[in-house]
């Protein structure tokens, strides 16, 4: 029998606010244990939470960008469970009345656009961190992360393959980064993903029994963990067994998922409305204000790049995957036109050099102006396309050297590392046939 996977993702994104969701503590990553805490985020008796307005703004931005409706009236709720990293014995989250609902994200599957529904987006606080001592009979609790704002973005079960899940995660990450609401770093845990996975015979309407896979902490593992879990379930089904509804943990070193707890052991979180916080009412004027200050989002930008610069869908898609990349591109094109040439040099040589050093476009030493200077030399026949590759590499190398010793170096690039200078110094001028 042929099976079809049904996947829904629950994504937790740490928000890039300066301070925590319900107190004034810093959210900075990597400080000494328990140094970024106060009576509120460590849950001392008698203290009260007060909502950070920036958190609300960030989640509304995200809701608008994913075509959600923004609820004019929403509430926080308490999710009750005991764990040492949860100082109050409950997490302040949202349950019955989330702030955003009924949106979608578009991904490209086999060249076609597919909508993945967003069920809801809500705000909640992160928990602290338990650090277990191997030798001793004790653990440490670091509450710096307790109270860091999270949004939980829950998708509809619209995803049909691990590859689609990766596309969805990538697209979501791009949107969050465009909005500046999350840095999207899966390895550091600022973007985390749990997956609900089930399988059903192709053509069947009803969903199969699902499992929840936790602890997926990189894009690579989204694909691997889902591939593993789908295969595992299909094997169970083909052997005449039944998939058990349970929570499973992805073990990236073993490359398998393992049972964590069954349905019977599932927590009863005893959700109820948080009485310490008044219901959130959002007025339309504020939503409109936020809407008008939204950046151009990747889908719109891609369409514009295709129509305005006649790029292929594929090139445009790559360029808009990071806002900084798209900005770099547009700056170069503004200086000299030639979008196709700029795009080719960026996608080819520039990416090759950056990838070799594991650098992002934000860390790129070269300026758009330098690339444009080189394109000019190709155009006026001073250098050939082949020689240009040598010039480009040299330009990158020299710029990097200048950038490491001087701080305000942009003007130095044109004196010491422009294509003109390099061509002259290295004697790379093209010998024209006429001479």
């Amino acid at each position, binding site marked *: 029998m042929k099976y079809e996977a049904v996947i829904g993702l629950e994504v937790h994104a740490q928000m890039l606010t300066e301070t925590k969701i319900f107190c004034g503590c810093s959210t900075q990553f990597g400080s000494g244990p328990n140094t970024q805490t106060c*009576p509120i985020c*460590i*849950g*001392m*008796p*008698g*203290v*009260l*939470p*007060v*909502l950070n307005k920036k958190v609300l703004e960030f989640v509304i931005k995200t809701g608008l960008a994913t075509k959600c409706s923004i609820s004019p009236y929403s509430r926080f709720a*308490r999710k*009750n469970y*005991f764990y*040492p990293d949860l*100082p*109050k*014995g*409950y997490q302040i989250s949202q349950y019955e009345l989330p702030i955003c609902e009924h949106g979608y994200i578009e991904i490209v599957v086999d060249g076609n656009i597919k909508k993945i529904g967003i069920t809801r987006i809500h705000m909640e606080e992160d928990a602290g961190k338990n650090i277990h001592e191997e030798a001793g009979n004790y653990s440490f*609790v670091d509450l710096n992360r307790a109270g860091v704002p999270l949004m939980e973005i829950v998708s509809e079960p619209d995803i049909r393959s691990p590859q689609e899940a990766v596309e969805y995660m990538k697209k979501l990450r791009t949107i969050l980064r465009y909005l500046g609401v999350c840095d999207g770093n899966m390895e550091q845990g600022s973007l985390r993903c749990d997956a609900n996975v089930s399988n059903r015979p192709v053509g069947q309407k009803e969903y199969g029994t699902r499992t929840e896979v936790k602890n997926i902490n990189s894009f690579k593992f989204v694909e691997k963990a889902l591939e593993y879990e789908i295969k595992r379930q299909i094997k169970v089904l083909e052997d005449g067994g039944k998939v058990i509804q349970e929570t499973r943990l992805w073990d990236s070193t073993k490359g398998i998922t393992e049972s964590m707890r069954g349905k019977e052991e599932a927590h*009863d979180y*005893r*959700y*109820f409305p948080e*009485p*310490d*916080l*008044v219901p959130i009412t959002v007025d339309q004027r504020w939503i409109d204000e936020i809407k008008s200050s939204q950046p151009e989002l990747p889908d719109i930008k891609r369409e514009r790049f295709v129509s305005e610069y006649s790029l292929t869908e594929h090139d445009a898609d790559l360029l808009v995957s990071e806002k900084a990349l798209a900005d770099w591109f547009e700056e170069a094109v503004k200086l000299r036109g030639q979008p196709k040439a700029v795009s080719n040099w960026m996608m080819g040589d520039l990416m090759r050099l950056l990838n070799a050093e594991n650098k992002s476009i934000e860390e790129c030493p070269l300026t758009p102006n330098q690339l444009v200077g080189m394109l000019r030399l190709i155009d006026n026949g001073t250098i050939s396309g082949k020689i240009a590759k040598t010039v480009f590499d040299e330009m990158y190398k020299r710029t990097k050297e200048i950038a490491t010793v001087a701080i305000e170096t942009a003007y130095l690039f044109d004196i010491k590392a422009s294509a003109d200078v390099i061509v002259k110094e290295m004697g790379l001028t093209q010998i024209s046939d006429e001479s």
Partner: protein
Amino acid sequence: MELYRLTISELRDLLDKKEVSVKDVVNSIYQRINAVEEKINAFVTITKDDALKRADEVQKKFDLGMAQNGKSVLGIPLAIKDNMCTKGIPTTCSSKILYNFVPPYESTVTSRLMEQGYILIGKTNMDEFAMGSSTENSGFHVTKNPWDLKRIPGGSSGGSAAAVAADECVAALGSDTGGSIRQPAALCGVVGLKPTYGRISRYGLVAFASSLDQIGPITKNVRDSAILMNILSGNDPLDSTSAPVTVPDFTAILGKDINGMRIGIPKEYFIEGMEEEVESSVKEAVKKLESVGAIPVEVSLPHTGYAVATYYVLATSEASSNLARYDGVKYGFRAGGRDLMDMYMNTRAQGFGAEVKRRIMLGTYALSSGYYEAYYKKAQQVRTLIKKDFEEAFRQVDVIVTPTSPTAAFKIGEKTADPLQMYLSDIFTISVNLAGVPGISIPCGFTSNNLPIGLQLIGKHFDEESILKVAYAYEQTTLWHKRKPDL
């Protein structure tokens, strides 16, 4: 002169005229505490050294003329219920689980009093985590009613009410979730005001049931309540449930004519099981009010019969969550254990008293999946109906008058075996918390055994002025509040 007998406004007068010093006042209070505290046991912590130091500081400021203007509690010794956090001073909620807890922060109410130069006399005993109506649920000791040492002072703010009644402080703060200020005030013969929910910041008040808890004053007369309300009220950025509502001068209304004011008598409040002397005193009080111009009107609060049940679902649900943080991990009492779960269970088993455990279990049950709809959700719906009852009644009247408690103070141990009987002690006060409206209890008579009886006046949302006005007018026509227990 027995300074400890005086009220805030009387002491203010003497202090401002420099007839007495802050230290005279503070010393007088501690002499009184020395004399009677052994009998009453109103306090959990007495802060004498700090208080004397503070008296010197305040006196200095006072002498330099730096502080007196408008500072009505400057140099006035007050007691604080032990569920309000006081920086550097133990705050135990009368629970073993917090027996060694010293908060590193100050509650908003005590910060406000501190800005005004009050002197903290001590922290008062209470039912553990404010759960109870007799102060017998204290994890430390039982407080006695100054009017009869064999009887309970009411609760949960029993320590505060007994301390005020026994003149061990000039006034005190209590907290009221289902009657915990008004019922002990009634049983100890003093004035207790539970303000509108949201009128006073809860920041630093250790939560029992967050949607019902309110802090309020317990005082020797109505004027002192108004004076404290002026200081305590107002929006606080640290408590988002505190309302951004303007605060009037509550003392300005005192003495204004109540002629023509309509006072509602809810027919559902004169029930079977109410002591006859309580009923007759309250009816007498209504007549008194009528004699000074008030117009009695019968009103109906039809959902009154559901209030106690509703309250015990909602309050325990919230409590089960609010008390989850006492796990022995970060502060307070910790018991040993084989592993984490064992440590949690031992800590909570040994740290909490029986009533607290009972309520945590009730609340956990009410919130559990499969029961939530039938209990918590249903109770929320009934709460809305109770709120509407009051809104409806307040269309016809300005204030509502009821007994505060169906009985006068009962004997120590009399109701401990029967929690339901104990819960009914708050039958007249609980609806007020559910509706979020303000209520005040004032002395309105004595039983034949010389036990105080309380009259409750209930007002509209954020209309403490009307109940203070009527309470003051009543007080002017009686001498009940002047009577003192014989200690």
